[in-house]
């Protein structure tokens, strides 16, 4: 695998989304996320080229550990220099929320409005609000609304599927 550019590209493609979710979740939307993702793959590919990763079935765990350690290092630096905004240092020209993002938010809100309007049950709407927005405990919601865990999961499953459908329809029109 060492030196094979095509294989390296497919490795990045395969793990990119997963690494991006892990890092994005850890740094909570800070602009540093892209740099950490890039560094994760840089270090991983370097190790592979050096022949340090001999067992392919441990590759996922290795990439995860590299990403996690980079996140830990980042927060260590932030804690060591609380007076310096590292995000600004790394991204001097990082823009604030732009018009494109504003538009996306409006579209998302409109899709959610349609989803909620098409839901027949007031109870199901309450499940979505309390679980996703108010972040209430599932057990408490189930207890209050007289739902079983399975019924609760079904509400979420249907909502996700319906939202995805609306999202795809909008993308198809766009």
């Amino acid at each position, binding site marked *: 695998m060492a030196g094979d550019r095509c294989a390296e590209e497919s490795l990045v493609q*395969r*793990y990119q*989304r*997963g*690494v991006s*979710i*892990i890092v994005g*979740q850890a740094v909570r939307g800070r602009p540093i996320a892209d740099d950490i993702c890039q560094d994760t793959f840089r270090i991983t590919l370097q190790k592979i080229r050096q022949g*340090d*990763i001999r*067992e392919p079935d*441990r*590759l*996922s*765990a*290795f*990439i*995860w*550990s590299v990403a*996690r*350690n980079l996140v*830990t290092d980042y*927060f*260590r630096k932030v*804690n060591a220099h609380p007076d310096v905004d590292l995000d600004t240092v790394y991204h001097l020209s990082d823009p604030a929320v732009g018009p494109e993002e504003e538009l996306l*938010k*409006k579209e*998302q*809100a*409109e*899709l*959610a*409005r349609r*989803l*909620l309007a098409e839901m027949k049950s007031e109870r199901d*709407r*309450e499940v*979505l*609000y*309390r*679980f*996703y*927005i108010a*972040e209430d405990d*599932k057990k*408490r919601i189930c207890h*209050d609304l007289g739902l079983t*865990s399975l019924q609760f*999961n079904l509400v*979420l*499953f249907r*909502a*996700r599927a319906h*939202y*995805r459908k609306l*999202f795809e329809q909008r993308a198809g029109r766009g």
Partner: protein
Amino acid sequence: MDHSYVEDNNVAELYLMGKLSESDRAGFEMHFIDCERCIALLDETQNLREGLAAHWKAGKEPELPVRGVVAWLGRFGPWQQTGLIAAAAILLLSLPAIFFFSEIRGLRRELAELGTRKNGQPQPPSPSLPGNQNVTPAPPSPDQNPARATGPASDLAQVNIPIFTLSSVRSDTLNEVKLDRTQKRFVVSLDIEGSADYIRYRVKIAAASGRNVWQGSNLRRNQYDALTIGFSSDLLKPGRYTLELDGYTKAGGIERVAIYPFRVVTTD
């Protein structure tokens, strides 16, 4: 981590909300990093959450019916409500007093036992030993393997205690702890070289289910820049665990130093 577990327990939702325990989060991340199905689930969930948040942020949040304690209290008049709240407050305030009282009683009992031992008075026979069997540790006979000795003597000494050196997730190896059930104890050694900035450490061991198995804080590294901890072999059942090492900084903060995932297997 299998998909039915992820879906039944809303693992993706809880992950995005940051509500998973450290070990569950690590386990789920190591799974979905290479799982298209879970990544699609996470994306769908995140899209829906963002959409709902944008919608409810733009408009008025829904008025939810009042439930639980507040609704129950609503059935009573203002004076009755005040009385009920006062009774609950008294009950809550008296709980710590009951707790401390029982703690003090336990400590007094332990102190009395220690005093009895110190004065050289005979100890009562152990309930696990028949009759008046002598509980004073005796040296093992030459043909007796001390590591397999039974009775109180084996509590004082154990030969060839297994020592396991764990590697952090920085390396690409999964640690394996092979426990011999005939050995009562084992030792875990953590190499913490390179993290000497910390004055003390905290160690937490959690099972794959997220259950906290053991925790120790204010631990100091030894002269070899390692942390060695002895455990009873009964502490860990076969399965996967995560050992989390945190460091206390000089400034008074606490930081994650390393994570050591390991698997326990037993040999009889």
